[in-house]
């Protein structure tokens, strides 16, 4: 298990290769990469461009929260390994924000765990985005759709 909250950029190719290399006996590896978008809002055509983004973080809690999410995923699915890397600080458009990887014997478990981790991370990990564009800097507002996606995984 490899969980990191870091200020510096990370290399998606190197992260993916390293994760696969230490899980060669897992039949299924699923990864997700969240990249900084270059426009505001939900629609690429109407949103104003974003020049840079600042990710505010609560570092101590972020480490703990991501470790808790990984433990929850491992309790729910038979996983061989999990990696989560999340940046904070100033980012440029196109740079990766988050990398999540899961390894399992079966692809259904790898996909489900990876999507679960992203959905819960989006509503529980203590990071806040501030986007800077031509009209100034704005804190991104949380989306109801993220709460809805996270709620799908609640146990009944």
């Amino acid at each position: 298990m490899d969980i990191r909250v870091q200020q510096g950029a990370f290399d998606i190719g190197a992260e993916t290769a390293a994760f696969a290399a230490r899980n060669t006996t897992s039949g299924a590896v699923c990864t997700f990469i969240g990249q900084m978008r270059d426009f505001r809002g939900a629609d690429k055509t109407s949103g104003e461009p974003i020049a840079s983004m600042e990710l505010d973080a609560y570092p101590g809690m972020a480490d703990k929260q991501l470790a808790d999410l990984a433990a929850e995923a491992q309790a729910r699915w038979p996983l061989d390994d999990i990696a989560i890397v999340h940046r904070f600080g100033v980012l440029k458009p196109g740079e990766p924000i988050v990398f999540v990887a899961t390894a399992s014997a079966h692809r259904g478990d790898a996909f489900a765990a990876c999507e679960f981790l992203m959905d819960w991370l989006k509503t529980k990990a203590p990071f806040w985005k501030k986007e800077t564009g031509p009209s100034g800097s704005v804190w991104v507002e949380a989306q109801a759709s993220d709460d809805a996606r996270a709620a799908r995984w609640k146990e009944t």
Partner: protein
Amino acid sequence: MNILYFAWVREKVGVAEETLNPPAEVQTVTQLMDWLAARSPKHAAAFSNRASIRAAVDQVHSAHGAKVSGAKEVAFFPPVTGG
């Protein structure tokens, strides 16, 4: 007790962290917000819309009714938007 502020809550309060000793009757997150809001106009502005503020007590997400008595670290922030 260390009080931490993040994102626009930090910008409105004007500081990232304060070490304070709330009185014994401040027992819940809501009571702590009431007590903090009375400290200055900036604090009052930061805590004016409680519905948009989340709290973590000793680094665990906590409801506004949760206990803060005995906590070492309480953080206030808007709903998270990472990932």
